[in-house]
């Protein structure tokens, strides 16, 4: 309906000159907030350093138990986990393969989603991508 309107370069340049940038304050609140966030993300590491000696024994023992607890709780070796992904693949398959790899179990060859002969995180990504693909998913 409309041709693309043309704005001469010189006009565009002068329009830009009308809008000069301000002198930003050194204590710009956005930079302050961003840097505060930076400090916040570092804090756990500082706490970790401070309490490392105290935490060493108790932390290691407890975290070992708890960290592996969810994995042991799962039905390791059940047919659902060992047999391979469903067709079409769902995000559940990507998650199941992740569990298998995290446990360092040997997956069935049917998990080789990308067909490269190795079963690794790339297969997790392949399964996840298939799961959300508009081409493969049921409508």
């Amino acid at each position, binding site marked *: 309906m409309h041709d*693309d*309107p043309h704005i001469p370069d010189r006009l565009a340049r*002068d329009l830009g000159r009308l809008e000069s*940038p301000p002198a930003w304050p050194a204590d710009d609140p956005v930079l302050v*907030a961003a840097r505060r966030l*930076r400090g916040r993300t570092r804090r756990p590491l500082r706490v970790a350093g401070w309490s490392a000696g105290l935490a060493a024994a108790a932390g290691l023992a407890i975290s070992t138990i708890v960290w592996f607890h969810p994995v042991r709780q799962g039905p390791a070796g059940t047919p659902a986990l060992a047999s391979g992904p469903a067709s079409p693949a769902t995000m559940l398959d990507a998650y199941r393969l992740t569990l298998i790899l995290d446990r360092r179990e040997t997956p069935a060859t049917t998990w080789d989603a990308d067909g490269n002969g190795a079963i690794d995180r790339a297969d997790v990504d392949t399964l996840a991508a298939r799961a959300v693909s508009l081409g493969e998913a049921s409508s």
Partner: protein
Amino acid sequence: MPNDPRTDQELLDAVRAGDPTAFEALYLRHRDWAFRVARRFTSEDARAMDAAQESFLFLLKRAPTLRLTARLTTFLYPTVKHHALAQRRSVDQADADRPAEVRAPPIHTDERLALLESALARLPDPQREALLMQAVDGMTHGEIALALSIPLGTVKSRIHAAVNTLRSDGPLRGYFED
């Protein structure tokens, strides 16, 4: 950091991954743009600066969980405009309680710029907005349509009308002569 080679999307990804410098780089790259946009809707530099900063504080809170499907400036434009209009409303409210005063016209030593600014001020708001988005912000018509939530044809007609008005303005005719 101001010249961080990463794209906006890469910087957002880096923010999400915990890179503490990525957001600063993003802000330093775009804060002048955000100020320019905000200044178009406010009457004071300080208010425009506030609006630009508020927009980025908004983005800072969203950044860790945000994945863009459009250019950052396209995505942020409505936010900056929203904050700028809010600033203007607060000024208007304050002005209502004060005696009216005549605001001094902009002063440009370059007469041509002064004429241009005057002509720009006479354009209807929607036309001026679309014109500046293309000419100054370098946004495509599609991006303008998305940012303003208007059809593509409307974007083109607004810019057309703005350009035609400027062209018909005697002193500015020189811009359109080769």
